[in-house]
């Protein structure tokens, strides 16, 4: 009995952490190129409604995820045009993008408010899924959970083992140096930003298609902001992003468990609901105090516009 509770808490933790991992890793790539896009919340919202609407209309989960990805990418393209081509302020543009995305998704989503999607069967990996306690959480998950792990592996390899990743880090550290040895800074930043948007779109679609297969206005509920904070507090390192995301997921599930257990406690539920946000930030701040790590991993040019002299 007890082991099945543990198993289901673990299961729920991983599911809750998954959208954060996908979104935060996408933002990590964008930020490593020097672009700070605060619009994650808006891009996730658009990804969520696009994913839901397309899944609902076509009956295809995968067209829904693709649609969510496209919506996020389109939003980030809009952002990139403003900040990279028109040299707009990144912070202000990102905030505007968030507001736009949240509002626009509510508008588009009006007709879908009372609809739900069929629950999607998990993918069980034979034998491994039967291991006690960890079997179900790790090996009987939704496809996008597996995707988030693959994404993690791919991004670690890309950033630290591949040449394009090296170029990306170089652009984020010093765009002027990268330009002077001949790399197309603006084009690389476009690609990184759009990748970040696409991942935010997938993260949003995960929420509305897999996690809670329905559409509610405001359902992203600040996860876009947490994803951005995760990247910063994880000092731009993929592994710490993952740790932070699961920590958030874990505390989220634990506090829901406490609230739902009917235990006699006198803690206001609002406080419990805020715990995941607090805990994640506190833990990440504590593990990221070392100035050297921050300086070695932070993209120096983050948020600064760069105009190559022709």
């Amino acid at each position, binding site marked *: 009995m007890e082991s099945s509770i543990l198993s289901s808490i673990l299961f729920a933790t991983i599911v809750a952490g998954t959208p954060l991992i996908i979104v935060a890793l996408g933002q990590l790539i964008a930020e490593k190129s020097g672009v700070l896009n605060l619009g994650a919340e808006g891009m996730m919202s658009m990804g969520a409604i696009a994913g839901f609407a397309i899944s609902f209309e076509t009956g295809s989960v995968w067209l829904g995820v693709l649609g969510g990805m496209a919506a996020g990418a389109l939003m980030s393209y809009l952002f990139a045009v403003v900040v990279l081509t028109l040299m707009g302020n990144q912070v202000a543009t990102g905030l505007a993008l968030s507001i736009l995305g949240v509002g626009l998704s509510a508008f588009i989503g009006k007709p879908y408010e009372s609809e739900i999607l069929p629950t999607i069967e998990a993918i069980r990996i034979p034998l491994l899924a039967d291991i006690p306690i960890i079997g179900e959480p790790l090996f009987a998950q939704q496809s996008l959970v597996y995707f988030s792990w693959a994404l993690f592996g791919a991004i670690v390899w890309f950033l630290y083992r591949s040449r394009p990743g090296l170029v990306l880090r*170089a652009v984020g550290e010093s765009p002027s140096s990268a330009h002077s040895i001949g790399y197309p800074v603006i084009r690389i930043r476009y690609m990184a930003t759009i990748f970040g948007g696409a991942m935010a779109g997938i993260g949003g679609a995960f929420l509305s298609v897999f996690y809670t297969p329905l559409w509610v206005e405001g359902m992203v509920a600040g996860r876009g902001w947490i994803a951005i904070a995760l990247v910063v507090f994880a000092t731009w390192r993929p592994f710490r992003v993952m740790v932070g995301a699961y920590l958030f997921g874990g505390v989220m599930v634990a506090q829901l468990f406490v609230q739902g257990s009917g235990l006699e406690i006198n803690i206001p539920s609002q406080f419990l609901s805020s715990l995941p946000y607090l805990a994640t930030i506190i833990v990440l701040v504590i593990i990221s105090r070392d100035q050297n790590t921050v300086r070695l991993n932070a993209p120096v040019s983050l948020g600064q516009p760069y105009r190559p002299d022709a």
Partner: protein
Amino acid sequence: MTSESGGSEALRLELQGITKIYPSVIANEDVSLSVKKGEIHAVLGENGAGKSTLMKMIYGVTKPDAGEMKWEGQVVHVENPAHARSLGIGMVFQHFSLFETLNVVENVALGLPGNPDLNQLAEQIIEVSNRYGLPVDPQRLVHALSVGERQRVEIVRCLLQNPKLLIMDEPTSVLTPQAVRKLFDTLRQLAEEGCSILYISHKLDEIQELCHVATVLRDGKVTGDCIPSEETPRSMASLMIGKELPVPEHNAPVELGEARLQLNRLSRKSDDPFGTNLRDIELEVRSGEILGIAGVSGNGQQELLYALSGEELVDDADSIVICGKASGRDNPDRRRVGGLGFVPEERLGRGAVPRMSLTENALLTAHHAGMLKNGMIQFDKIAEFARKCIDGFNVKCGGEEHAANSLSGGNLQKFIMGREILLTPKMLVVAQPTWGVDVGAAAFIRQELIDLRNEGTAILVISEELEELFEISDRIAVIANGRMSPAKNLADTNIDEIGVWMSGMWDQAAPAEEVQTNA
């Protein structure tokens, strides 16, 4: 290529009528020059003469508006740096194009075409660096390297591509005299192997020692070609600035007065994890003398300046005594009231607020000099003061209401120097007084400093230009690795000794980074 069989007479690079116009300035106008195979060709000119722009066009970073470039007899349009590198052109930048958070191999890999294997590349780096006497450790992170080592990384990166033309933009400004000699040996070896070198500099003695031919630029135009070995530094200087070079008069030492600045075992751990910690610095500057502090950049100059100006406070108030007052815990404004004047290294951002007018910038440090009345700004007075700075120091600008960032670097430096000097501080701390200033203005600024000393001000000058320190200082000390050497009278020392000291070797216990690795 058959044209190469023409031997040393074959032209490797030929520029004809190159013109580049920026919105506010003509950077290059009808520039022509040609470089032979195996030739070390100097491009000489003051700051702002258009040398760097010209080199960037050869390397494909920017494109000319008019003119033609021929490479080994063929007309080429260099599209971008990668194209230039594929032709065989390599460039070592004045401000390095290195990435601090990456290691040496990764930095080198970024400048190479294709996708080189990093382990193999590390071996190649060691091989090339041994062959040319440029020791570098491929695995170290760049931020941990000294400036000299960084330059070696840049050079090695170029050499790995077997360049036929190597462009060096002001390469010696960051090196000790000993390291400069090493660099020259490397460059001569390269030239003997047939590589052509374009050597950008404003240092006349170096050009005389190293270069076969020189092309002189002034205001974006070629003012002449010469054979440096047949010229004197003075004759080249007049080609470069268009008039005779004034020489500052260093009057006989004036009588020394009381101590105006005393540092007593000044130690401070840098806030920057990659900064230099100041360790037990002892120093005294007295009224009527100029004390020069030499050193390779990054050895604690910046930290010392922050500690002196009050931008960063020290724990022990007594370790910094300004005009007899323990000031280690005082903020910059209180130190100024106490008689300190200060010219920082960064003009925009520290010396002046970029978008404020010259008048407002004058007020920032002069507000104690009767510019306020009951807390209100006396606008006519500050405007008058700003005009005095402009007129007295030949600042070329549109007027005192123009923004600080509309001035060229040299003119802004003159303005800031003027502002501080006209306040007649008891103690003046100056960092890089003539950095980026043209030769004529530099001579003027040095003269002003000497005049101020004659009037009894104590002056501390921190500079990376040894020639400058030897021209104006009464005593000279060296900062290396956050430690300060004893100060020597100018007559009792020479450039060679100070050069050795710059490696930290004024006593046996000190680390000797630069020279040891070169030996």
